[in-house]
């Protein structure tokens, strides 16, 4: 026996299937559903209700996490179109973008050679943020035009940037610890 709430995550929260999304409304509906389903509501309930509650709350958490983050939201929108991103034999990346990535990665690897490594890392993080914003703008435009294949390319670029950002943040924290 499974719970069966909705066809997709957008519908679960009664939202239109679209990249534009009101974060406040998403959060409010998420909380409304968790008030109904969260295991805390069923702590004194029978075993099967606790199981359903856990299943339901897990699904709602997953749906919320997916829609809250614009990158996973875009990925999810593409998956609703039958477009997958974890394809090993992937189409080629834009060469200019790849070169830029390599340069940024190199700058990150060599950050400790700077006079002020922390400031240099923060500078790189800013650069990544600017790049991400422009990628998101392109992604959004293509999603609006339902140009799925192009949108997919921008999602892949943003995934690169996300990984790069994670490395930069880890480095920033390590540098701050050393101060």
């Amino acid at each position: 026996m499974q719970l069966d709430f909705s066809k997709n995550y957008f519908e679960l929260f009664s939202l239109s299937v679209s990249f534009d999304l009101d974060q406040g409304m998403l959060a409010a509906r998420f909380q409304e559903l968790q008030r109904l389903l969260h295991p805390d509501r069923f702590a004194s309930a029978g075993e099967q209700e606790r199981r359903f509650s856990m299943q339901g709350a897990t699904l709602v958490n997953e749906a919320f996490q997916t829609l809250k983050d614009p990158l996973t939201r875009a990925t999810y929108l593409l998956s609703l179109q039958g477009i997958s991103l974890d394809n090993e034999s992937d189409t080629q990346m834009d060469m200019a973008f790849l070169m830029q990535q390599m340069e940024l990665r190199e700058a990150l690897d060599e950050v400790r050679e700077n006079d002020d490594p922390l400031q240099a890392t923060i500078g790189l993080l800013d650069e990544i943020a600017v790049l991400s914003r422009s990628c998101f703008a392109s992604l959004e435009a293509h999603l609006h035009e339902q140009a799925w294949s192009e949108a997919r390319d921008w999602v892949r670029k943003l995934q690169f940037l996300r990984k790069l950002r994670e490395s930069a943040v880890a480095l920033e924290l390590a540098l701050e610890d050393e101060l």
Partner: protein
Amino acid sequence: MALLQISEPGQSTAPHQHRLAVGIDLGTTNSLVASVRSGVAEVLPSSEGELILPSVVRYLADGSRQVGREARDNAAADPHNSISSVKRFMGRSLAEVLATESNSPYRFVEGEGSVPRIQTASAKVTPVEVSAEILSLLRKQAEATLGGDLVGAVITVPAYFDDAQRQATKDAARLADLHVLRLLNEPTAAAIAYGLDEAAEGVVAIFDLGGGTFDISILRLNRGVFEVLATAGDTALGGDDIDHLLAEWMKQQAGIEVKDNHGLNRHILDQARAAKELLSECDEVLVEIEDSEYEWQGLLSREAFNELIEPLIKKTLSPCRRALRDADVSRDEIAAVVMVGGSTRVPLVRDNVSDFFKREVLTHIDPDRVVAIGAALQADVLAGNKADGEMLLLDVNPLSLGIETMGGLVEKIIARNTTIPTARGQEFTTYQDGQTAMALHVVQGERELVSDCRSLARFELRGFPPMVAGAARIKVTLQVDADGLLNVTATELTSGVQASIEVKPSYGLQDQEIEQMLRDSMDYAQADKDARSLREQQVEAQRVIEALDAALASDGDDFLQADELSQIQTARAAVLAVAEADDHLAIKSAIKTLETCSEAYVARRMNASVRKAMAGHNLNEYER
């Protein structure tokens, strides 16, 4: 059944009696039990009127035990048998404990598995059993004060506790005959107490430095919703470490080189702790060692003390930075920094945290009681005493969870600071032709190498059909429940072969070991146990029937066919028939049957409640 709780707001629900539930702060140094009485959460006193129980258990040669103040006061005279700070050993292997406790007075010995045993005058005991002694006393104390059996307890754990440490805590509760309503993270408990008490809103940081553990949690408080954004910490950093540093300094000053005089060590530690506490108020204190062999006196200024402990205090700031990053909030966005745990009385701690967050920190909340109070408030909700359900608590898992892949690398499946409950699957494949089994190793931690993470469990998926390398598709699903405990399932997708294990941590006790301990426990006669089980099952039967009747009255006709309804009615009658008899197993089994019969009904109601809640919203509401 909690069917009642998804009934219409305002609809009358069957009146039920107040269910007795407690919150327990099982601390490294001290433990407390609290409960909500007449709408107010308060710490329950012992028969001697004490609110705080020192977390010390002394095992005597005649097989008896002392728990609390008496045990603590005798610790210097009987260091081998007086176990303090046992929380530090929970969920740890013998090897890990020995690595960190080289100066410990306790005689650690091997037992079955990797769980350490401590040789005492009366028996070999595991950390779980020592904790159970503390929990058991708190349970009895609460039952005496509240005048009845407890339906359950919320027990707090450091937010940064890993799966093994959480499981060990739950095992201890089981040994103490306590039903765990929830394992609650200590900083979250503090946030509940603080948030409800002061109607606080916005993003708050809870800085919790206790006797042995450190947590930092960032939460968003919004109209009864307590949403943990991120947590970080160190489960081996606390006031104990300050005491040890100070004790070492004292020994150095006094020229004491002997290491294994455990009575003397205990005495010096007690003096160090007293000096530390005084230094929160005074600028200078007199420290003394007074033993049959050694006598020494010295002056310690707060300045010198601060210099000594500063490196330790600085260690709390790195998790603070990480938690802020993970929560994606800046320091200016923090509305309040709440100090929790006895060690936050140390002025240097307050100054450092205040400097870090660039604001005054809140110290007016009793740092010793706030966690137990928050746990009691949550217990009251979980026991079903608050029908309105205004409070919603969204907590996270503190550490990433992953699976070992080729080359000793970790494939992370669930990221740290993911809201729980959560579940996530990942597919793996075979690397040899004809392979029919696969070993899986679940680990917890942030590092990339398995050897740098903590091993949680190993298990094998067997019996799937032989295929060429890479053809099998093994889906491993990790699930974290609302207690932060992990459950793992694995399925080979092309054949459907399923393997499931409850993660018995690599460092945990086996179920049968706990059963044996339960049988062995002296003060727990079978007759008492049966009587308790019977009362529990009778109450449960009554609750199930009440909940079912209320549900059927409201929407039974909408969701059930005539034959389904009649099946449920038959099962209901069977519960009533055995409810007054004295066979707790028969009642349990009848309840189980009733639950099975009504499973589809429960699922339909839950689905309907979700649809109904969302149906109130216009799909395009946000486009206006």
